[in-house]
């Protein structure tokens, strides 16, 4: 039995059974997870691995910096807009380009709309099934479900027993036809599922309603981005013209009619998040409030870059409506300032990552970042390089680098943002948190858990939808004052650029702090480094042996059935992991059940 103490306070024990989950399903990209469980099936060691090479940095070298957004938006299917926004901000920072107020409002609306969309889809379609059992929903009494629904969401109109019975029939037909579809690959007999059938039926009903509703949310980004599925972005502003008289001559301009349409969608987002999404989390949370695993670093080390500048071009903490700050050592009384430019603050380490630096022990600030592959394993590897049975976490074991803030492993994402906001006294967020805690009758520590992460996402969706409305009002008011400018093209011509510049753009992506650092030389990209949220959360160990947020969150969790990693999936999904840039060739067998090996 070998135990090991990490500087960030965890006791790792590599004895007992080793459980391997590969791939972790229902996430973006490829991820593998290995844990050791003791004789009571409690996780005593956790190893999380990004199993795909992410070579984004190397494909942007030599490209036109004004084009970078289009490449980064193709990294993956979910962060499309937020990567594009981060990219144009980095280029604008490097070239000192100020954007018009309207562009700032429109970008915020698009970013907030993405937050709402991503959070909603994540909860219902990727995460809810870690808590909700659709097979059990077939046993529900529609009348009792209707009563539950009216109690939980009194303002949601769709609650008649007949409607719920119809949904149940639809699900039954689906399940009985043998095609569980999106519900397949679940562990539906696992005792970790605790909801009564009525709560399961209610949640599955909302799963379907959310699937129907989410299509509306996309239209906001289509209107401002001019194109469905992959909106357009522009260095210097936004690529949509404003023409309030409704003349369609200039391509796809913003008209009053379209702005009113956006207002309608925004209102429906507020309603759905307030009346259905957040109440569902509270209802489900009520049945699971004894399951308070998964907190990991959320109560000790959290980081937020901040986002949603109120006024254009001011990215200082005081102007950001999503807070900025860092909390370390669990001291919520002190929120540290965060400076993404400071070479001492954000550094990436690679001693346990499949990369090499000149000095593997050093940490590099992203402006000086190096992306050079070095696929080697430690001596404890079981299997071969192309057929890994068990990783050696003492050697290199992930394609994810280990970013650290002043040497600390940090959690990022909605819960990290809410913890920073709570510590700073962000009024709206503090009220939300207090209300959720009192509804569930749990102490503030309950926030630092898997469910706390899920609840923070739900609260944030409500906030984001409301702030989206604020920026819509602001946009309309500004246009009515006669300002229809949406882009500043004075520095668009590369001839006007200095020979060598660097810049940084940051945002809060739905899943956490996102930064792009760029160096431009002779009008081309010389170096481009992205530190994405899942790099923070999914990071492997660093040079000091600190474990990352995913790994920390799995520690000391009790598994009901080690062969069925419900608890692991539950906690990892609560981060909304995005290991991005996955290739997606389909296989003839058509099936991919997570392969779980116990050894």
């Amino acid at each position, binding site marked *: 039995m070998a135990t090991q103490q990490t500087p960030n306070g965890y006791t790792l024990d590599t004895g007992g059974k080793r459980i391997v989950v590969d*791939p972790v399903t229902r996430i973006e990209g490829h991820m593998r997870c290995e844990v050791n469980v003791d004789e009571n099936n409690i996780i005593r060691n956790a190893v999380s691995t990004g199993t795909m090479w992410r070579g984004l940095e190397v494909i942007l070298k030599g490209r036109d910096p004004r084009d970078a957004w289009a*490449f980064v938006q193709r990294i993956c299917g*979910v962060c499309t807009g937020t990567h594009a926004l981060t990219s144009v901000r980095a280029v604008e920072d490097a070239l000192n380009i100020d954007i018009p107020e309207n562009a700032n409002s429109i970008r915020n609306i698009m970013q907030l709309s993405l937050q709402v969309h991503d959070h909603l889809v994540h909860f219902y*379609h990727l995460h809810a099934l870690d808590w909700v059992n659709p097979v059990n929903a077939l046993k529900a009494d529609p009348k009792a479900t209707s009563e539950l629904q009216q109690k939980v969401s009194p303002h949601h109109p769709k609650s008649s027993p007949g409607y719920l019975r119809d949904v149940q029939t639809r699900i039954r037909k689906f399940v009985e036809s043998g095609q569980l579809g999106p519900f397949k690959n679940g562990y539906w007999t696992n005792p970790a599922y605790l909801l009564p059938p009525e709560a399961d039926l209610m949640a599955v009903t909302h799963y379907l309603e959310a699937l129907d509703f989410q299509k509306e949310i996309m239209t906001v980004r289509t209107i401002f981005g001019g194109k469905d*599925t992959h909106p357009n972005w522009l260095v210097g502003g936004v690529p949509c013209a404003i023409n309030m008289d409704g003349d369609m001559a200039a391509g796809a301009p913003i008209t009053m009619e379209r702005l009113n349409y956006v207002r309608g969608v925004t209102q429906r987002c507020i309603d759905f998040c307030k009346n259905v999404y957040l109440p569902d989390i509270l209802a489900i949370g009520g049945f699971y409030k004894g399951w308070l695993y998964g907190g990991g670093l959320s109560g000790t080390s959290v980081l937020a870059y901040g986002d949603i500048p109120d006024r254009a071009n001011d990215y200082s903490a005081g102007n950001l409506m999503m807070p900025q700050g860092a909390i370390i050592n669990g001291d919520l009384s002190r929120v540290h300032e965060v400076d993404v430019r400071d070479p001492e603050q954000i550094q990436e380490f690679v001693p346990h990552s499949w990369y090499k630096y000149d000095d593997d022990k050093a940490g590099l600030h992203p402006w000086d970042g190096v992306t050079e592959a070095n696929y080697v394993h430690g001596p404890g590897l079981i299997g071969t390089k192309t057929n890994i049975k068990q990783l050696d976490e003492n050697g290199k074991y992930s394609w994810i680098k280990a970013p650290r803030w002043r040497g600390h492993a940090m959690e990022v994402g909605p819960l990290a943002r809410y913890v920073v906001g709570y510590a700073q006294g962000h009024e709206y967020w503090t009220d939300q948190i207090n209300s959720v805690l009192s509804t569930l009758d749990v102490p503030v520590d309950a926030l630092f858990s898997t469910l706390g992460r899920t609840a923070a996402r739900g609260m944030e969706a409500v906030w984001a939808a409301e702030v989206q409305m604020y920026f819509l009002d602001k946009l309309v008011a500004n246009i009515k004052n006669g300002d229809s400018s949406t882009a500043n093209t004075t520095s668009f011509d590369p001839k006007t650029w200095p020979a060598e510049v660097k810049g940084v753009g940051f945002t809060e992506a739905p899943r956490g702090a996102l930064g792009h650092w760029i160096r431009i030389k002779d009008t081309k990209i010389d170096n481009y480094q992205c530190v994405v949220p899942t790099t923070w959360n999914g990071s492997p160990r660093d040079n000091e042996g600190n474990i990352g947020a995913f790994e920390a969150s799995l520690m000391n969790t009790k598994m009901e059935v080690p062969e069925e990693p419900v608890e692991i999936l539950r906690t990892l999904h609560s981060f909304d992991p995005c290991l991005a840039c*996955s*290739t997606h*060739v*389909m*296989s003839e067998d058509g099936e991919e059940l997570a392969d779980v090996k116990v050894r």
Partner: protein
Amino acid sequence: MSKQPNILILGIGNLLWADEGFGVRAVEEFHRQYDTPDNVTLMDGGTQGIYLVQHVRDADVLIVFDAVDYGLPPGTMKRVEGEEVPKFMGAKKVSLHQTGFQEVLAMAEMMNDAPTHLLLIGVQPVELEDFGGGLRPETKAQVDPAIEMALEYLSGFGITAQKRETPLSQGSTIACPIMTTEHYENERPSEELACRSGDERLILDRNWQAPSDFEGEMDALLANVPGETG
């Protein structure tokens, strides 16, 4: 005939992964060469997963272009129709939160809105491990035949797409102007500049080295091809 059916021609895949871009390139090229009636929508679905459900639900007829691992020789094109389609579209390595297109189809079905007619036109990829790369010649060569296949299928529904007298320029199709094949491939940084060391050969075999004089070797090879003179 009553109401015209809604037809969606969808290209899916990730442009940044070499032959994984086949689906998107095929639908772009379809748009470049053909003008379609109003009830036909052409769409670059990328790796948008769940966000495509609404478009799939709106369609009565769905044609999908994609790179598919059929287990066939690289560059082989294969058409699959109707109920057979989902089993070729598994969840393997699929994007958007690992949502397979199979799952997107199942979600549409669960909403009682699955397309009535379904055609998958897939090509077995040659190369995927080239992040930032374009289609390999064998895959690119299947773009036109894939379009022909889609046209023939459309004609079964009485739909005729008009061949444009002059194809659209690459920048004026549904493609993002920055990501057009021309721009994407021609402005790709050189191997040396980009240090594209993510290549599997490099990662898995530290001793692998690129040919020192690639151009020279190619010239020498071509010089020996019979009939290729001058």
